[in-house]
């Protein structure tokens, strides 16, 4: 236990070091690249006098090291600053976008789990038949496709049937839940397919291996139906490694959603980072980088913890 705590503390220190490194790198590169926030705020045809006035107003004309230290001071006071472009507190903006991203990822994960269970069980049950091999080929196909290719092909297939852009139909003053769900369907389905392709194979292999074991034949001989065998005996054993894998795939889910957000014009955190970088909105960019960095590191930590807890050597030692 003490060893585990010590490891956790070491991991925590490493995480803090990474965050500091990331923020510093972003800070330096953002200020080193040509252009500045004034062009995005005032438009491209802004006069040099106005650029100077704008930079002074937003506080972007002080020395670089001073801006850097001020940012850390504000962070320790609990504030992430104000967006240059939108003049809103960064924290509020980030929470809104992160909330939408989280909604997309959670629905994607949910759909992915449903697809994995359905596809994995079907594949595992019919593992050696032609139908099973077809399902296996489908899994491999989706595994090889990157997320944005899956999203693009889905948008192509469903063009005209399902909306592939935005989050709601703005003609209605208060878009209904059904409308919002319709807009969420294709992006969530893309994420779900990405999750399914990685996990279903393992589930199918696990189920097929379990079904080959003698105890299933014994259960059949005892008179249990195939569904009962599946649900009562096979699934619990096959699901255990799946949960580990699911935990490990959480950071990848966050990463995959960035490309999906771009394909479907979904206003989430990935989209926000990209836009902030392009328009030199440094507070929002660095705040977003910090948030994503923290989320990734926490996700990795959680995955490691899950892995450790569910480590069969520990469980059965």
């Amino acid at each position: 236990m003490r060893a585990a705590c010590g490891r956790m503390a070491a991991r925590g220190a490493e995480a803090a070091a990474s965050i500091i490194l990331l923020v510093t790198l972003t800070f330096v590169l953002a200020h080193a690249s040509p252009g500045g926030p004034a062009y995005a705020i005032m438009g491209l045809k802004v006069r040099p006098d106005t650029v100077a006035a704008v930079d002074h107003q937003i506080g972007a004309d002080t020395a670089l090291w001073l801006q850097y230290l001020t940012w850390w001071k504000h962070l320790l006071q609990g504030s992430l600053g104000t967006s240059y472009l939108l003049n809103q507190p960064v924290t509020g903006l980030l929470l809104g976008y992160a909330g939408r991203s989280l909604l997309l990822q959670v629905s994607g994960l949910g759909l992915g789990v449903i697809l994995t269970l359905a596809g994995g069980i079907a594949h595992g049950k019919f593992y050696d038949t032609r139908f099973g091999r077809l399902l296996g080929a489908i899994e491999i196909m989706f595994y090889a496709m990157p997320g944005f290719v899956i999203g693009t092909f889905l948008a192509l297939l469903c063009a005209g049937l399902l909306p592939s852009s935005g989050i709601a139909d703005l003609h209605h003053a208060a878009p209904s839940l059904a409308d919002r769900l319709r807009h969420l369907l294709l992006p969530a389905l893309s994420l779900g397919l990405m999750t399914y392709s990685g996990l279903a194979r393992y589930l199918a292999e696990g189920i097929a291996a379990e079904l080959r074991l003698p105890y299933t034949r014994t259960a059949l001989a005892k008179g249990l139906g195939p569904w009962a065998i599946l649900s009562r005996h096979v699934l619990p054993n096959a699901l255990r490694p799946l949960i580990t894998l699911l935990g490990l795939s959480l950071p990848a889910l966050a990463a995959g959603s960035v490309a999906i957000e771009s394909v479907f014009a979904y206003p989430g955190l990935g989209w926000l980072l990209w836009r902030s970088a392009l328009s030199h909105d440094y507070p929002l960019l660095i705040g977003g980088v910090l948030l994503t960095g923290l989320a990734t590191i926490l996700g990795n930590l959680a995955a490691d913890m899950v892995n450790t807890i569910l480590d069969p050597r520990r469980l059965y030692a």
Partner: protein
Amino acid sequence: MFLTRFVQQAYPQEIKVFWFFFSKKNILPFAALLLAGAAPCGTAVIPNSIGQAPPSPVTSLNPLLSSSVANNQLTELLFRPLVWIGQDDRMDAARSLAASITPLDGNRRLRVVLKPWRWSDGVPVTADDAVYTWERILKLGDLFAFTHLGGIPDKVAAVHAVDEHTVDFVFRAPTNPDWVALNGLSNFPPLPRHAWGDLGPDDLWPRQTDPSLARVVDGPFILTELHLDQFAALVPNPLYGGAPAHLARLVVEFMEGSHPLAALRSGELDMTHVPLALWDADKRLTGFKAIMLPEPFGYTCVIYNFSNEAVPFFHDARVRRALTDATDQKTMVDVVYHGLSHENRMVVPVVPPTWLSPAARSGNLPVRGDKVLARAELEAAGWHTGADGIREKHGKRLAFSVMVRADIPERMELLQIWQSDLRSVGIELSIRPVTTMQIEASLSCGCSSWDALVDGNTIAGIPDGSGHFDTGGDFTGGYSDARMDSLVRASVEEPGEQGLFAYEDYAAQEQPVTILPQGGFPLLVANRLGGVAEFVNPQGFWAPEELFVTDEGCLRPDGGTRR
């Protein structure tokens, strides 16, 4: 229902202002509108900055603090400027807040009489509101986004109210009243002193996206919702003093990087830009019509770097004239713009032809697009053809590179045609595609890293050259000529058009930049939406009160004649 509320609470940055419909003093005028039969009807969703640029986000509701077209199109709907420029680049009498503009005292004073309009809370718009705007401009200093345009605030000595509806602008020296009216007063909206109070830059700047400052307006629309990076929703202002809007709800969508064509097809957007090559896209899709908007009032030009010693030949006006004469603009218009543009060799746009000098109107210009003339000019300047076909003088080749934005394919095509044109008169051109930031950084650095670059410029108002072609002007690569300076000064100080015409003719002779044809914006519009051709004008002023929809049980306001 619970889920909707939860969703609304979860997004704290979404700011909704639903006060309008529930305010008692607005019910009566609204009912009057209904009884008059001009009931607003229908909802339209349009992308932001349509007609001028790709969609970009609304980041400021303050008309004084941003000059980006995305923000201005929205703020002009809320806070009407004194002068609204019409489709012919003159003052639009119906939509301007000024009823009349009279020069007095030998053009040292401009008397503006306001129309008896009211703010949306019932308080009348008075001359004191114009004085309040002037005070804000003085406090903002260099932060005022339109500083120096039309002489505001540098040429204005004072602004004071004569009576309740008359305000006087007093100048330091005699100034061209048309120039001030069209270039300056078109960015001068009276602001509600009673609603805003005494705010300085430190209050106004952080509150640019605060809709509480946009609650009291005098324009045709009122802002009801602003969701940052997504959309803004507007409803008609029943107390607006001009022609009322036909729509009951207008939604301006401004998500960058969205897919407008897909949204158009699924019915979520009612109009969008299409790439120029797809200007006839209505042949591929049913249920839509293609409308070609006129070119923005401005020009695309090649700017030369006068401070780069490696290309000294740009200082020679004969070489510049030759560069323009060699341009086969007819091919450019036909091939790049499918015939939907105009040839132009002047720094004054030819559409609308309001401000063209008589010489320009009759086509009697020193440059005509004639390659023979170009070769003659180059020979006279001492540039003779060398061994490889490129002209040389004192061992220096007549060759340069031009930077162009890589994301606008039309400009690349124009340059490829220009490249072969120049080669046929003995000039070598190499094309460098770069990013937008590099273009803007090169223009402002004054260094020698570039020879020439392609940029665009839009003009709102009179196309005088002040701030561009006078010494120290922006966006010209350092061009400086004494006679040009005096002509530009004359055009903004003397009344009437003679000063402007003299400047134009001299600029045609000098060719400080080489003008290339620019294209309009093809739109693809859903059949349900009408009034599109009237709603955007080349000066970038939006008039969505002209828009109407033909479904949702709404009647056509014009009896079926408008597109």
